[in-house]
């Protein structure tokens, strides 16, 4: 037992696992510490991460605990910081395209879509309809893949091992389609500025349709394992509750926002690509707890299937690439474009000075902003719930840290 564990004497507070932390007790937390600590021996500061099986990468959460009750948290991020925005300033627009795949690497296609559309907007070109359809199909498949990975890891965090393997089995089929389409499975670099580089391969539509019929019962299978499982209900109901107002104030977007009852989806609110042509619903929750977020994401998978089905049945013929100059030199100006990534609103703010490289490129990462809500969600819960809540926010550290 290290000193901080047993007595909360002030000089020991900063001693977390042997290292002197500059900000062990974050000043912005305003933790209500009573005048005279009552059994402060129970008050521990625990360092969860950056190497911890359940923080989904290298997130480090400093927990202030009273026994097992969480008094406050502080996230320490940046372990995966690669300076994507700085890199963008030294790369041409086309060269930067693959880099965006590395941010949210489980939803690389979505990242690419947002970036390409932002640059297209800046260039004032539009992708041809066929390219839009291909984009929608791949993006929605990727949304499914992302949600499946989320479900697997989230369930694993809560202790159910088996769903992980089921979701990975089914995600594999999506990745196979990606691989056949563009040669890569994870960081796909599927789209180009102005459309798509590759025409769909022969049998693409058949593959996608096969996948649709394959995966629909599998989603029911996941739900069978979890939705009515008593332990799952106990672990997720009323855990990490956040209200819709809090979500809006904290800028939380995506399934977390929708689970809190705010029916807002960029695909409907400000349709981009070909989304205005498809019919789909926005699933929303009521309580804003972990269970609702789970249900919302499960329903989103089904809605994604609906979109893909409509898209693949009505995919038009035509070119897949708009007329884009070989050297991309957008005119001077700035643009903000955002899409509904699996995790929330993914925005790109690009400032062009008329040269071949972005003058400034800002990524608005949904994971980073959503992660801010962690503290609000976990106050007063137990350590085990912190894990569940981190899982339910669905962060990807590559995107948080960029």
């Amino acid at each position, binding site marked *: *037992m*290290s000193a901080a*564990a047993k007595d909360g004497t002030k000089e020991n507070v900063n001693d977390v696992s042997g290292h002197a932390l500059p900000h062990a007790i974050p000043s912005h937390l305003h933790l209500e510490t009573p005048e005279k600590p009552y059994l402060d021996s129970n008050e521990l500061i625990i360092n969860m991460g950056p190497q911890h099986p*359940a923080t989904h990468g290298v997130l480090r959460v400093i927990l202030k605990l009273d026994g097992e009750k969480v008094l406050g948290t502080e996230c320490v991020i940046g372990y995966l910081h690669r300076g994507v925005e700085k890199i963008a300033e030294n790369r041409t627009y086309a060269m930067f395209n693959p880099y965006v795949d590395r941010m949210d690497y489980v939803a690389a296609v979505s990242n690419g879509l947002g970036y390409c559309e932002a640059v297209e907007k800046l260039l004032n070109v539009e992708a041809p309809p066929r390219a839009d359809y291909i984009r929608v199909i791949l993006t929605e498949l990727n949304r499914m893949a992302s949600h499946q990975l989320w479900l697997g890891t989230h369930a694993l965090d809560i202790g*159910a091992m088996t769903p992980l393997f089921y979701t990975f*089995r089914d995600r594999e089929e999506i990745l196979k389609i990606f691989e056949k389409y563009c040669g890569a499975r994870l960081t796909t670099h599927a789209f180009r500025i102005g459309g798509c580089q590759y025409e769909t391969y022969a049998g693409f539509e058949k593959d996608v349709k096969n996948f649709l019929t394959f995966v629909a019962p599998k989603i029911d299978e996941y739900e069978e394992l*979890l939705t009515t499982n008593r*332990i799952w209900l106990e672990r997720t109901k009323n855990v990490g509750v956040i209200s819709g107002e809090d979500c809006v104030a904290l800028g939380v977007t995506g399934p977390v926002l929708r689970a809190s009852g705010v029916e807002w989806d960029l695909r409907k609110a400000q349709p981009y690509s070909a989304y205005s042509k498809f019919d789909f619903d926005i699933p929303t929750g009521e309580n804003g707890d972990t269970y609702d977020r789970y249900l919302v994401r499960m329903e989103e998978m089904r809605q994604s299937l609906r979109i893909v089905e409509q898209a693949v049945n009505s995919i038009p013929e035509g070119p897949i690439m708009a007329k884009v100059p070989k050297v991309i030199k957008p005119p001077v100006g700035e643009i903000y474009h955002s899409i509904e990534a699996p995790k929330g609103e993914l925005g790109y703010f690009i400032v062009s000075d008329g040269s071949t490289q972005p003058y400034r490129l800002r990524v608005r990462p949904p994971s980073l902003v959503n992660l801010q809500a962690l503290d609000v969600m976990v106050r007063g819960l137990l350590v*085990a719930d912190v894990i569940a809540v981190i899982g339910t926010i669905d962060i990807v550290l590559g995107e948080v840290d960029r």
Partner: protein
Amino acid sequence: MPNFIMSYLGSTVTPGEAGNQFWALIYVLIIFAAVSLAVVAMNWFERKALAHFQIRLGPMRVGPHGLLQPIADALKLALKEDIIPAEADQFVFWIAPVIGLLAAFTVYTVIPFGPSQAVSDMNIGVLFMLGVSSLGVLGIVVAGWASNSHYPLIGALRSSAQMVSYEVAMGLAVVSAVLMTSMKTGTGTLSMIGIVESQQQQGIWFIFKFFPLGLIAFVNFVIAMIAETNRAPFDMAEAESELTAGYHTEYSGLRWSLFMLAEYAAMIAVSSIAVTLWLGGWLRPFPNLLNAPAWDFIFSLFPGLTFGALAAVAVIGVMRMPVHPYFRVQRIGLAVFAALLGFIALFLLVIALAGRSSDATVAARFRDGIDYVYWFVLKVALFMYLFIWCRATWPRYRFDQLMRVGWKVLLPITLVVLILTAIVGVIVS
């Protein structure tokens, strides 16, 4: 000397009762080896079964179908660097896994694999078992403390609280089984062998006694025993996603493997207790209904047939293996394994046949002994499967929910069952 061995094989009492220290020692060694082997087998089986639950193959490389994987693991663990953290309390850190292991293995001294197939028949067998298995928590608590680190400490506190709470429900469930032993004779018994014998005399496994009281007590005991052994969904102490590995976070190598050994040994021990108390211990199914000598003979063929079936599975595995030089060694290995199983099957069948020819001979006793151990082990194996099944199916409870289940659900239910059992018993007798 063979005569001496044979004379003992024909004995009808346990070595402890016979006051035979030599045979008691042999029994202890046999049980130690067998439990270790069972842990190894359980390890392999768990990995394979869990893998098949999770649409994977599990270990396939080391030996045919990964049969040698546990041995490879054990070797790896034994050869691994043994790290003791600098800040840890050296001595306590060293002694903690030993405490757990000793507690887990000592329970086996009273577990009856048959009417004479036990080290000793203590007349306080059940109490002894409860007490000794409760000592296992000391190893965990002390390990968590000695690691001098937060996660192990929380894991240790969690698991001590958990084990102490579930022990209460477990003990009460056991008491209701003990109450049932007094039904016909008027005086109950705490001896493990006595409990099974009273099931035999009453002609009913206690799980069906006073239906559904016995069943409820049994289910409660099973839940409590899963919690007591820190297995999913009650594996708070070692909740991987929360506390990395709980109390053994800082342990590695051999010492860690001792913890694992203790955990699995404890699993087998509590399963044996459940089998003894509720599932008729070594009794074969329907000993009263199907009690003709012909039925005895048919049931005595079961061990041989089981091993024969296993051998057949192995043979099928050999045949299904691709014909390729890469698989040659594996084919041969699996074939040898199949042959081994076949020989065991043959041996058991021969014993069964030999035991038939004349009753009350040494061969017959030996056959009976094999039968007893077989049925006992089979029932325990079903429990092992239950453990794996639970692990594959359920998410993990949160700590407060776990305590709530223990104190507010299991404890009242077992109390009510205990009182009802007593009332019904008084009314019936």
